[in-house]
Structure formats: structure tokens, C-alpha cells
């Protein structure tokens, strides 16, 4: 359980987050937003530049003090709802491997919009430790249309490729989507954890950079079935201390840069990371 009640007060336990992966309590995962990859409409025709951009961002994140990195094909707009084509898989695998060899931080993979199978394939090939899956179970109406969760295929695939140690962090009510049929959060979480195998839960706002609703976060924490809760959007230097009362970890991208396409600025990373380190001590 993630909480207990005394009178009208709720106290939350901090859940130990996969201690073999993260050294610090309340870890921060820094996002590596890949510019458009080959085959995507906005591809700028130089893979070398993409590799360099991502390596520079990773250096800034590492120097700024994040606890882990996560690579995402953020530039590949508009996203495929499910399987991505093979050039995306190959390029992300190359990038992931380069990052893995250059930085000792734990590494995650997110293949937008919802290709958990390719994310696991890339994580396994690059020896990364976790994946983010936007819709692991159930069905949601997204900006890519209706997306069905594929936990049944994702978990079997993970076994077949011998990658059971790769953790799956699954979104609950992910950004840029609506439920097709609203259900109680408690049921959704139980199904995501017990029937679909999520190792961690992610709570996000309505869009990239948008803060999570505090009430939703508290509710997720209440029903979290002992799984760690990650903040998946909108964490910044102003709200991170407050959020850290409920969240076990943070996935941060936009707050580390002046605009979404810009390179990561190490000072922004330091500012946010130092806030959390103070609170953690």
C-alpha cells in the first residue's frame, strides 16, 4: 500500500524505486527528444546531426545531475498509432546504443505513439533498462485515433526476446487522449498493474509540458498497488517540491529547455535537480 490514514490526515510512503536501477530516492529521468528521424516528414537529411544533437542533450542532462535518461522519437510527427517502420527502429537502436556506451546512467526507450514492442526490442538491443508505454491496456481516443493497449502481446514479446528484466512504466490516462468509456481510476490502475504487468505508473497532464492535476495524482498514489508513481509531464522548478510529496520519480523534458525544439540547457537541469536533492536530504 502507498498510504495510511490517521483521523482526517493521509500520509504517503515513499516507495523504493527499483533500487538496482536508481541510486537516489525520487529519481529524475531526463528526456532525450530525438529530432525527426529518416522517413519522417520533418527529417532534415542528416543522421549525423541527429546523433550529435542527442549526444549533446545527454551530456547536458548528465552534467546537470539527472538520475537516468530516456530516448523518444519526439520529432517523428505525426506519429504512427502503433507499429513504427523499420528505419525508426534501426535509428533509435543506434542512438540508444551510442548513449548507453557514452553514459553510465540507466536508459529508457519510448517509441511514440504506442509501439511498446519496438521500444522493448530497442531497449534489449541497446541494453537499456526500461520502456515507457502510453497505453498498455484498455483503449483511448488519441490524436492518432483509437489506440488499443497490447499488454498481451507486449509481455509475451518481452519473454520471447529474453528481456524480462526490462521494466515497463505505463501511463495512466495519458496526455493527448481521452478515455473511450470513463472508468474509475482504481479499476484502471488495478488492471494496468495486475492484469497487464506494469512495473511503474506514469501520471501526466493534458499535454507535453502541462502540469498534472494534483487531485488525480493523489488518487493514483492512493490506488497505486505498491507501484512507483512517475510524473510524466509538466514538472518544473516551481512545482517539483510539492509534487515530490506524492510522486516517486519524475520524467522531465520541456522544463529543461527554452522551447521544445531547442537543445537542453544545463543550467535549467541543475536548477531543477538541485531543488529535489535539497528536499531529499
Amino acid at each position, binding site marked *: 500500500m502507498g498510504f495510511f490514514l490517521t483521523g482526517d490526515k493521509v500520509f504517503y510512503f515513499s516507495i523504493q524505486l527499483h533500487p538496482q536501477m536508481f541510486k537516489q530516492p525520487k529519481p529524475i529521468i531526463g528526456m532525450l527528444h530525438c529530432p525527426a528521424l529518416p522517413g519522417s516528414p520533418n527529417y532534415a537529411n542528416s543522421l549525423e546531426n541527429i546523433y550529435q544533437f542527442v549526444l549533446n542533450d545527454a551530456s547536458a542532462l548528465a552534467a546537470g545531475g539527472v538520475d537516468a535518461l530516456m530516448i523518444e522519437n519526439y520529432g517523428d510527427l505525426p506519429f504512427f498509432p502503433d507499429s513504427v517502420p523499420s*528505419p525508426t527502429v534501426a535509428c533509435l537502436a543506434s542512438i540508444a546504443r551510442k548513449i548507453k556506451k557514452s553514459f553510465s546512467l540507466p536508459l529508457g526507450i519510448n517509441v511514440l505513439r504506442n509501439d511498446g514492442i519496438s521500444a522493448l526490442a530497442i531497449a534489449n538491443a541497446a541494453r537499456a533498462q526500461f520502456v515507457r508505454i502510453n497505453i498498455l491496456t484498455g483503449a483511448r481516443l488519441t490524436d492518432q485515433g483509437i489506440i488499443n493497449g497490447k499488454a498481451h502481446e507486449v509481455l509475451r514479446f518481452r519473454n520471447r526476446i529474453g528481456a524480462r528484466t526490462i521494466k515497463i512504466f505505463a501511463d495512466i490516462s495519458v496526455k493527448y487522449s481521452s478515455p473511450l468509456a470513463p472508468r474509475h481510476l482504481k479499476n484502471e490502475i488495478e488492471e494496468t498493474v495486475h492484469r497487464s504487468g506494469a512495473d511503474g505508473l506514469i501520471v501526466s497532464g493534458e499535454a507535453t509540458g502541462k502540469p498534472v492535476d494534483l487531485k488525480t495524482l493523489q488518487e493514483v498514489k492512493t490506488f497505486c498497488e505498491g507501484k512507483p508513481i512517475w510524473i510524466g509531464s509538466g514538472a518544473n522548478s516551481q512545482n517539483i517540491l510539492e509534487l515530490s510529496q506524492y510522486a516517486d520519480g519524475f520524467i522531465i523534458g520541456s522544463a529543461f529547455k527554452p522551447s521544445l525544439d531547442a537543445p537542453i540547457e544545463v543550467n535549467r537541469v541543475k536548477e531543477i535537480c538541485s531543488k529535489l536533492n535539497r528536499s531529499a536530504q
Partner: protein
Amino acid sequence: MTPLNLLSRQLIGMVHVRALPGTPRDKGYFEKVIETAVHEAVTLEKAGFTAILLENMHDVPYLKTKVGPEITASMAVIAQEVREKISLPMGIQILAGANEEALSVAVASQAQFIRVEGFVFSHIADEGFIDSCAGKLMRLRKELGAEKIKILADIKKKHSSHAVTADISISETAQAAEFFGADGVILTGHATGSAASAGELTEVLSRVNLPVWIGSGITANNISNYIKAQGWIVGSSLKKDNHWDNPLNPESLKRMVSSFLSFSI
């Protein structure tokens, strides 16, 4: 990284990548698979080969024309590791006929060529019926901005029945590949390790303006029978007991390179 010059003679050494994650022979040690491939590529470069070709040879039984992301991602990582350790031109082949995935891996790892099965016409391979992929593959190459990656196309390929094209000669097949934009064609015998026909080589060379490579059965002893070819892809005969499943045999590498050098310079 040396560019691939299709006008000069190439001795291409095969790196038969060990079983990849999720395939029946996978033993679960992917780091070891990477290491072995890198070691073999470096060994081939040191021995004097002029190019290498990475192939997922141990993924038997092969899938037909499309493989999953676990193969694409694993080959991309292996190709990148190899690329960092050698400067020779590098090619990619993903069995069986998974040519779009091979092109994707080549793009990601900055490889210079892919070996393509089933580029034109059709045949019945041991994986089943294979159809021409040229139309889609060449569009993908354009879409990826990867025209510099050369397409070396097998024609009337080994391990296959060509009864369905019995009224089309090998040179007509080569002409079709040329018409569809292949950068070179590859002649093979009937199986891995079995020799191509020197007569077919002469026939094809007289009908197309493309480099012709020999893609199976080349040994240090018979390479001189194919002296008019522009490239020789060698795998099985470099291995212990001439079997593709075995490790590289340093003596065989030496013999092969010296035979190649005896007439190529």
C-alpha cells in the same frame, strides 16, 4: 570509413551473425553475439578483405520478407559496433528477403550497401514464395534520402526453385534488375557453399553494364574461374571444415586473400 567503389574488385567477407534475440537458436547472450561479430569483422579486415557483409545467418528458420523490430534493432546495434571498429565498406543482409529492414539498418549504421534477395521476378525459396521487392524498396531508399546505399541484387538465387521463371534466362533476369535500378547483381550456385556457373557469369557480363559479384561457393582454388567478376562474397570456405556454422579459420583467410591478390592487382 572507406566508400564502396563498385568499379574496383572487391573481396567481401561474410560475418555470419550468431542467433539474435527471440530466434529459435538464441542462447540469451546478446553481448556475446555483438562481440563475436565485431571480432570476425576485425579479423577479416586485418586479413586483407576489401569489404564485409553482415548477415543474420543463424536466425534459422528464417522469416519470409519481414522480420520483427528485435531483429532490426539488434542488427542496427551490431552494425554500429562493427562500423566503429573497422574502416572497410560494410554491407547488410537480413534473411530472408527482409530488404527494407536491411536498408533501415544500413541507413542507421552508415553502411554502404545491402544484399537484396527477390529484387526482380519471383521464385520459391525455402521460406516460400518470394516476389519482387524493387518497387517498394527503391521508393523507400529515396524516401530515406539513402540513394548512396548500393543495392546488390541476387538473381536466380541459391536455395530456391526457379521453375516459375523457367522461360526467363539468367541474363534476362540481370537486365530486369538493371532496368529496375540495381547497382550490381549477384550470381550464386544452388546453395550456400556451392559454386556458381562460370558460363552464366560470361553470359550475364555480355548483357548488362553492371558489376557482377559471385555470391556462393568461392574458394581459394576456384576464385580464378570467375576472374571476370567484380566481386566475390566469401563465407563458408573461410570457416573451419568449410562449414558456415564454424568459427573463422586463419589459414583459409590467408589462402583466400592471396588468391584474390594474385589476379586482382
